[in-house]
């Protein structure tokens, strides 16, 4: 039951990141996803994995709170497709994780697929650097968490690396366009 709640948190947080453009919305979304993923990591691989995810996601959320467009900016005008995407992706991920696939760990499968899919979609749909870096951080956390589905779910390196990449990638400077 706790894992199901954690998966719901992952969906809620990712949906917040997908549907927000402001720094508070993005930071809150990152923090909620991190909480959900850390619980799932605790259940599948133990305290070290959960700590790595929590620290990486926590740093990413804190950094996002400090930079980016001011405010929450949740569901700005024209964001209906994002809302539809969040709901449709959740239905599809739920069907694959709980209906098509079998065995224990459905909340973990659901969360990993959902966060990877929505973070990838967010990157494709936005040109705003803070949004892109937030989505990249979520992707790193989800890829790290996905190691829980491998043959050896106790290996901790992917969690540590995922947390590290998530914590570092959000600090990249939002520059780079230079006249030729």
């Amino acid at each position, binding site marked *: 039951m706790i894992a199901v709640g954690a998966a719901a948190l992952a969906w809620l947080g990712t949906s917040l990141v997908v549907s927000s453009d402001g720094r508070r919305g993005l930071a809150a979304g990152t923090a909620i996803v991190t909480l959900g993923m850390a619980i799932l990591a605790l259940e599948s691989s133990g305290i070290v994995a959960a700590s790595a995810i929590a620290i990486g996601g926590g740093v990413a959320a804190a950094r996002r709170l400090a930079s980016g467009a001011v405010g929450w900016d949740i569901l700005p005008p024209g964001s209906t497709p994002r809302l539809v995407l969040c709901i449709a992706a959740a239905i599809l991920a739920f069907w694959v994780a709980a209906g098509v696939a*079998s*065995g224990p760990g459905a909340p973990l*499968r659901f969360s990993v697929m959902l966060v990877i899919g929505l973070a990838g979609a967010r990157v494709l749909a936005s040109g705003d650097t803070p949004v892109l870096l937030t989505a990249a951080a979520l992707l790193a956390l989800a*890829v790290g968490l*996905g190691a829980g589905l491998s043959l050896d779910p106790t290996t901790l390196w992917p969690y540590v690396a*995922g947390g590290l*990449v998530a914590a570092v*990638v959000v600090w990249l400077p939002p520059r*780079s366009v230079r006249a030729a």
Partner: protein
Amino acid sequence: MQPEAAELIVVAAAALAFAVVFAPPSSPRRALLVKGSAGLVGAAAIAAVPTIDLSLLVLLALGALHAAIAGTRSFAVRLRAPVVAVALIGLGVVLVRVAAPDVLARFGAVGLAAGIAAGIGLLPYLHPIEPDEPLTASPVAWLAFLGPVFAAVMVSRAQALLPVDAGAAFGGILIGLGILNMAWGGIASWATENEVAAWRYSFVADWGLALCGFGLTVADGRRAALLVLFSIVIGRLPLYVASRPAIREKNVTRRPLNLVVAAALAGSAPFVGFGARILLLRAATQLFWPLALVLAAGMLLWLPGSLRLGRSLAMPRGRQAFGVALVLAVNVAAGLYPLPLLMAARL
């Protein structure tokens, strides 16, 4: 580390050394060396880490760092490709790992193949290119420097991960993508107006051969893929670096040297591309002979584009002329006697 990837890292290091030593005088050598070395370390890390998850995370970090290099394309445009690659491969890995009917693993194979194409910058996910962008920030860095190691590692890890049925589907998808890229790249490198874009499409066409080689699940296919990647990193990339000043000055010449360069780019004998093509045709004949006919027809598409690219090199002088001669000599040596390359990769 997989021997094939280790060999490609060494070859990429040689290409970096070439670029630094033989770069035009106006190029910032120090920046090229620093950024190239960082890329090389990233590529080595992709190959050295023990699991596909860690390779993906290294790729994500490398992609974000590359997007942050100053260039003419926006940060968003440059970050998209590696992030999409990581997302597609990540989804593919999840679908393969879960206990589910075979069809889900086949969907996973689609994600893995599409992610590999996105990461390198091939159809159906070509990276936008700007003619004036520095080499280190341009998509060519993925196509010709980081891409070969990334592809060799990912294909190998994907094949180890996939069950038999999905593995066959993965090979089929790679061959399909390979033929698509071969045809598109061959025609576009001939027909496009911009010389830099023509060079980019020629890389794409070469990658088409490499993907076909990876997809053909016989030893000759893998050998062909390795030789094609070698020719990209140690042949096409240095020649592209040498041709950049002439392209900028819109300088075109029709001397014998340009014809020899065109022959090297087209993969004619005795250059290394010829051996790769023979091995590829042999592999295709072993598996399904009509495929060899399609590949042979596709290989003819290299000719017009290569003649154009050969002319775009103009007439190199001084140190650059020596560099071009060195590249051609290495490509001839590898074409005449590729066995050491194949043995080093244990193929």
